[in-house]
């Protein structure tokens, strides 16, 4: 996965043109876990949408395994922050949705769904409806749905942001297991420094809008990581420092915008 000089201006060429990303260069190696960290509104989601092929970049190029990204592909599964399970389908039908799109027979769909749900620890919930599940379980189903497509890249847009702290910690452990099993690369967006410290092989810190890469911090700590270890504390302090100025800038800009409006 390679991004070269990727830029995105929303509503380009109109009076409401709005620059979200500028000149982003980013490589993600196969099987790597990369965390995108930045203040809210800096364009992290925008970058994921571009990589997913849901939106078109206004500049630069994105390639995935040498193919130019110009449309969505099951190779690159996006997991959204809010629940995106279809309420009219049962859990297993949600997980097998991508297969049913390809016209896979019911037998295969059930098997794949069962296996994917087992991998996220929800084998019991096959026949439940999404609204019978808790927020954390729903996100796990969303992960299972992505895994069922055997993606090469998992794109995750603040998937655990709506969860409470304990659930989030559990979900992080679980995600690391799933990631190790699947061999996929993960591009994980968050604005939580702790989350970045717990998960990443590399942390990519963004500037305030328009989002540019401010720095890339490699994390060479073995997992599972003890959040209270001195190494983690050190890393947290470093990321906090990197981010502080950007958060202030993002705030100032938002206030200026509010003042102008």
């Amino acid at each position, binding site marked *: 996965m390679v991004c070269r000089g990727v830029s995105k201006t929303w509503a380009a060429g109109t009076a409401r043109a709005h620059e979200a990303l500028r000149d982003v260069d980013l490589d993600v190696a196969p099987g790597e876990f990369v965390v995108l960290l930045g203040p809210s509104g800096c364009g992290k989601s925008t970058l994921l949408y571009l990589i997913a092929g849901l939106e078109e970049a206004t500049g630069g190029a994105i390639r995935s395994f040498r193919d130019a990204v110009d449309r969505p592909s099951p190779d690159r599964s996006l997991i959204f922050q809010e629940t*995106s399970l279809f309420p009219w389908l049962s859990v297993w039908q949600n997980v097998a949705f991508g297969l*049913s*799109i390809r016209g896979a027979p019911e037998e295969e769909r059930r098997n794949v769904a069962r296996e994917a749900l087992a991998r996220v620890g929800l084998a019991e919930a096959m026949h439940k409806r999404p609204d019978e599940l808790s927020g954390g379980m729903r996100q796990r189903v969303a992960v299972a*749905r992505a895994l069922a497509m055997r993606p090469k890249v998992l794109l995750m847009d603040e998937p655990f942001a709506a969860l409470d702290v304990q659930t989030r910690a559990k979900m992080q452990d679980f995600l690391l297991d799933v990631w190790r099993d699947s061999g996929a690369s993960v591009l994980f967006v968050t604005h939580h420094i702790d989350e970045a410290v717990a998960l990443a092989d590399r942390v990519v810190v963004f500037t305030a809008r328009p989002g540019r890469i401010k720095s890339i911090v490699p994390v060479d700590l073995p997992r599972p990581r003890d959040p209270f270890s001195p190494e983690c504390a050190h890393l947290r302090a470093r990321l906090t420092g990197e981010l502080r100025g950007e958060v202030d800038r993002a705030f100032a800009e938002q206030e200026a915008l509010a003042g102008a409006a």
Partner: protein
Amino acid sequence: MSGNLAGTAGRLRRAGSSALASRPSALPPNVRQALSRLGWTVVSVGLFVGLWELAWLLGIADARLLPPPHIFLGNIPDQARFFNTATRWQIGVDAAAGPSPYEAVGITVAATAGRVFAGLAIAAVLSVTVGVLVRYFALFEKLTLPTITLLSPVSPIAWLPVAIFIFGIGNAPAIFMVVVALFFHMVLSTVSQIDGVNRNFINVGRTMGATKRQIYARVIIPAILPQMLIVLRLNLFGAWMVVLVAESTGVGFGLGQVIMLARNTFNPSLVFFTIALIGLLGFLTDWLLRQVQRRILYWVPQTTGVLRGL
């Protein structure tokens, strides 16, 4: 959570009144709920009837103009005579021929209800189809949406002559009237429902490799179904209103005909009897659609409980 709340409520009730200690009820909760709803319907209607009767007792409501319920419902066989559906005026038909008065009421009601449902079904299928096509094909939108928008405020009454020009008399003009009264704004409502579909749902479909057609069939249509059924239920009443207008001209029999007969023969009792009948029918058909809605839309949470808690 809700079990907790119920538990708390139970404790409160027990603590509050030992004298009025609630007897354990043998009925399952949903039956009890239905009974309670029915009870309140009776009370609500009873209140209205009571006020009317009171007005009659006090001499405010003139029985010749506003006959109270005990008069217009007092002699149902007498009222039923007016629902004559036999073609007795034709030469050579025996005066005693044709259905009995009660059968005639049944036939009349069935005919009108049939027109309502036929019109509703046709309008629903047509308008959802057109609404989806509008969003699916940009050219189709450009060609049709302006005209649909222009026509949607036209009162169904204005279509009545058109209905008769095109379809003459019989069932067809009445059904046409129902369809035309509902079609245009149901198209607009379909389009706005489609525009309101959660973007994430559509993006999930896209990342899974769904084609445009699959996204419409597998994501957009199920996503708009709940709202569309609500729109349909609201339009059911509109259909009942329009069908009477349509039936008042050019149809052999129907409730609209009975109303026209009552008007021409100055029979307020018959008017109110028919109104009561229509009210009852509207109520029953709404209940029916609600059941359908509950069956089809098993995934839509019931939120009235939350509102009650306010």
